[in-house]
């Protein structure tokens, strides 16, 4: 069902955990559909110095969380905003059709985390 890459990331997910002093946090999904994914980012000089995720979700959710953090870490905010569900799915060697939508949440969570950071920044600046 799952590609080799998905299983590799599921077996050994990268960047799991929380960032206690995160610059931004984004959460998507809900407990009814059964996938929740939270992304933490640490931003310095417009660069994602650190990215971590936590998930309650299936293998696809775990793998897409892992892949997204790998893709995002070290990138500029602008670069990170280019990461989409499609980018993540492709980097994972594809996802089963019925898993494409609800389990591939990490790119959305990342975007939310960036928004959260921007929001906070705006408040700090003003």
């Amino acid at each position, binding site marked *: 069902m799952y590609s080799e890459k998905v299983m590799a990331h599921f*077996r050994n997910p990268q960047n799991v955990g929380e960032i206690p002093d995160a610059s931004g946090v984004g959460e998507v999904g809900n407990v009814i559909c*059964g996938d929740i994914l939270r992304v933490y980012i640490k931003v310095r000089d417009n660069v994602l110095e650190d990215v971590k995720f936590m*998930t309650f979700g*299936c293998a696809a*959710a775990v793998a897409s969380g892992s892949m997204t953090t790998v893709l995002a870490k070290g990138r500029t905010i602008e670069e990170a905003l280019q990461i989409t569900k499609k980018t993540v799915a492709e980097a994972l060697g594809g996802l089963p059709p019925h898993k494409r939508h*609800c*389990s591939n949440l990490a790119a959305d969570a990342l975007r939310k985390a960036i928004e959260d950071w921007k929001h906070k920044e705006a408040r700090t600046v003003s």
Partner: protein
Amino acid sequence: MRSVYLDHAATTPLHPEVSSLMGEFMREIFGNPSSLHSFGREARKWMEEARQKVANLIGASAEEIVFTSGGTEADNLAILGVALSRSEKGRHIITSSIEHHAVLDTCKFLAKKGFEVTFLPVDRYGIIDPDDVRKAIRKDTILITIMHANNEIGTIEPIEEIGKIARDHGIIFHTDAVQTAGKIPVDVNTLNVDLLSLSAHKIYGPKGVGALYVRKGVRLEPILHGGGQERKYRSGTENTIGIVGFGKAAEIAARDLDQEFSRTKRLRDKLIRGIFEKIPDVRLNGHLKQRLPHNANFSFFGVEGESLILSLDLQGIAASSGSACSSRSLQPSHVLAALGLPYEWIHGSVRMTLGRTNTESDIDYVLEVLPDIVARLRSFSPLARKLQA
């Protein structure tokens, strides 16, 4: 790596006696049972012997057994067959909210076609109250269909009592015994049923063959039209190899029932005890006593079922889950939902069903491996953190 199969409610391997008989049959006998010539008659003889064995398993007579392509078709035939033949008499059907999809979706199909269906609730252990059945009966009720035991949580329903109520009201009563036949005693007369579904692959027979018991005198329209096989109840050239395997599997299931009951129950109880000892924040879904001997169904808080299943799989352990992600429809288990279980717990459910392949050391292995898996998945679960907080 060790391989431990704990998904016997999903399907079972062929019993060696079954595969060897099927192998012998398929190499030697090939006639079409409808043919007049010796090739056909020989095939028919084998098929009729199998029919008798299946009948014996449930206390029926051979003429009351209609072979089908499985439990799903048996359920469909029972429900659609009664609906088609009795729609003039009424269009109300009573069922439960925890039936297998083969019953549930067939009833929903009828509901779209102008029938009315009452889906009875269950208590938090999954038990249907016979009084609820009685209250749901109407003048135009033509069928009651309630499963003998649930496939996910193993809860055994009070079929005998419900059967009595149905009989008192002259309503046809069907039960899906796919999970019970061969596991606990099933007798169509004790249970007061008119129709009863069976499936071979749950009792160490082949997939793709099942049967519907049709009590003498009960009328039923066919759902597959054609050559008029199975006394017109079910057209289509018979799956002879599968039927022969089914017969043997039924014979063995009847023979070994008591022994397998105790053996799997003992192992299952050990598994439950061990898990409760070793893992926090876990619950057992279903009833503690009124339960199939080989079924255990847990929920691990904060852990998503599919991830758990795949993690177990990486350690060679096969189990299943009622989580949405484990199903193609992405719907979480309607059974666990009917128990009133919160979604967090539903998505964290794991069913382990024991059987002939399991030994004591299988259970030890699971108890060794599972706690770490649960701990690992919880380590990055936002829900588990919540619980700890």
